[in-house]
């Protein structure tokens, strides 16, 4: 630690930190005492009230309904004044460093990169990745269909997590929780719309990518397993669609799942087993909903990520197939 060998610099840094802390404590004390005063006057007016009056209820859940007054204010305040404070401390440190060491200042990002690289030696790996040549024949638009599918998967992951915050996978609550997402949750309708259309887009892009690979013969030796993993990814995407379709628990979802699982049930020998596994019983019920929800948000994503990783590693290793 060079800092401790340079008393002047250390003093300056410490002075900056103490100043910042003092400002923070003073600000906090001021707001706390103001709140205390308010509470005290409220307590004088209302003697035996157990619940706080609505105008003083912190209402941490109100941001869902849009009553988010004063929830962002502290964050904004801390961001603005905190940035000033950090800039001040940084300026003091930088000036002291240049002054005492008589050396040009090295940017913090460079220092951070050097710090990581010194320990983990990432830069040879990264530069090798970055320098990987991409053939010019692969600069056509039809080569990005698979990439779009992968990006749509990311979109589905993000919007799906957001929906999962509010969705309730029970027969009694699924429908109302979707209504809640559409009508009450801020931007809930937008998120559901994106999830809905990106799901359809993912299937379309998957099929388009598959057609491109099929037509160009890119599945031929040595890329057989690329094709196999890709087709399995298509099936996983269809499983995503099939399991996700039930979750709104409306008439369309219920009967689409009924006929869909019926097709699986028509298989010889294992038909009934498949039917029972998917429906958790002979009929589509709340248990089916739980099963599909688990498949949709845990099993299928994990399998998809695994196969995607394999798919990408194989592409990396073998390169893009040269067209005829």
């Amino acid at each position, binding site marked *: 630690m060079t800092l401790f060998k340079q008393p002047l610099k250390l003093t300056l840094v410490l002075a900056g930190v103490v100043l910042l802390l003092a400002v923070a404590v003073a600000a906090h004390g001021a707001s706390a005492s103001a709140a205390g005063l308010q509470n005290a006057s409220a307590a004088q007016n209302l003697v035996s009230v157990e619940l706080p009056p609505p105008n003083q209820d912190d209402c941490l859940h109100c941001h869902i309904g849009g009553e988010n007054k004063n929830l962002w204010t502290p964050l904004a305040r801390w961001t603005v004044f905190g940035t000033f404070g950090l800039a001040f401390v940084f300026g003091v440190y930088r000036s002291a460093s240049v002054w005492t060491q008589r050396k040009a200042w090295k940017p913090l990002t460079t220092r951070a990169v050097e710090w990581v690289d010194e320990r983990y030696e990432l830069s040879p790996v990264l530069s090798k*990745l*970055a*320098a*990987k*040549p*991409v*053939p*010019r024949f692969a*600069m056509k638009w039809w080569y*990005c269909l698979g*990439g*779009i599918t992968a*990006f*749509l998967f990311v*979109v589905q992951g993000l919007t799906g997590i957001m929906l999962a915050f509010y969705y309730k996978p029970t027969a009694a609550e699924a*429908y109302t929780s*979707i209504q809640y997402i*559409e009508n009450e949750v801020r*931007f809930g*309708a*937008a*998120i559901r*719309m*994106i999830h*809905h*259309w990106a799901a*359809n887009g993912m299937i379309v892009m998957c099929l388009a990518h598959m*057609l491109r690979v*099929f*037509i160009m*013969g890119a*599945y*031929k*030796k040595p*890329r*057989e397993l690329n*094709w*196999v993993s890709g*087709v*399995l990814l298509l*099936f996983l995407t*269809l499983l995503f669609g*099939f399991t996700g*379709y039930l979750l*709104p*628990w*409306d*008439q*369309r979802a219920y*009967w*689409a799942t009924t*006929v*869909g699982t019926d*097709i699986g049930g*028509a*298989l*010889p020998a294992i*038909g009934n087993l498949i039917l029972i596994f998917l429906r958790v019983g002979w009929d*589509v019920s709340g248990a089916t909903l739980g099963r599909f929800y688990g498949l949709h948000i845990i099993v299928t994503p994990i399998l998809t990520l695994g196969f995607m990783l394999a798919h990408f590693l194989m592409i990396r290793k073998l390169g893009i197939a040269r067209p*005829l």
Partner: protein
Amino acid sequence: MTTTLPEEKKDSVPFYPDHFRTEFYVVVGIGVLALVIGGLGMFFPVGLQPPADPLDTPLHVKPEWYFLALYQMLKFVPSSILGMEGPMFAVVMMVVAVLAVVLWPFLDRKPDNKNAMRIRIVLSIVAVILAIALTIWGEVS
């Protein structure tokens, strides 16, 4: 390998920054499209049908659009084929077709040529037209 290196350098671009930039534009484009669709969703939400009711079967029960073509095909299956039940036979055929698609690279192992590619293009176009036609038929029926 070393002999092909200059050749490879000449007709290729480095992944970063050249190809990365292209991919970045694609991602931004799709992202903006997603946001526009989301914005539309604020005014025209996906919506819901009436709540699920196991006792009330709608007149036209349909699966998702991407299964509609298969579903429509199932409707034309006679009730008995080769001593098997019709639907069971159709589903077995479907499983065979799926296996053929999965294992396609092991079935088509000849080195590629222009003629084979032409056949694949025709096959793809026919399959796509058939699938679209069956899907639309399933949607309106």
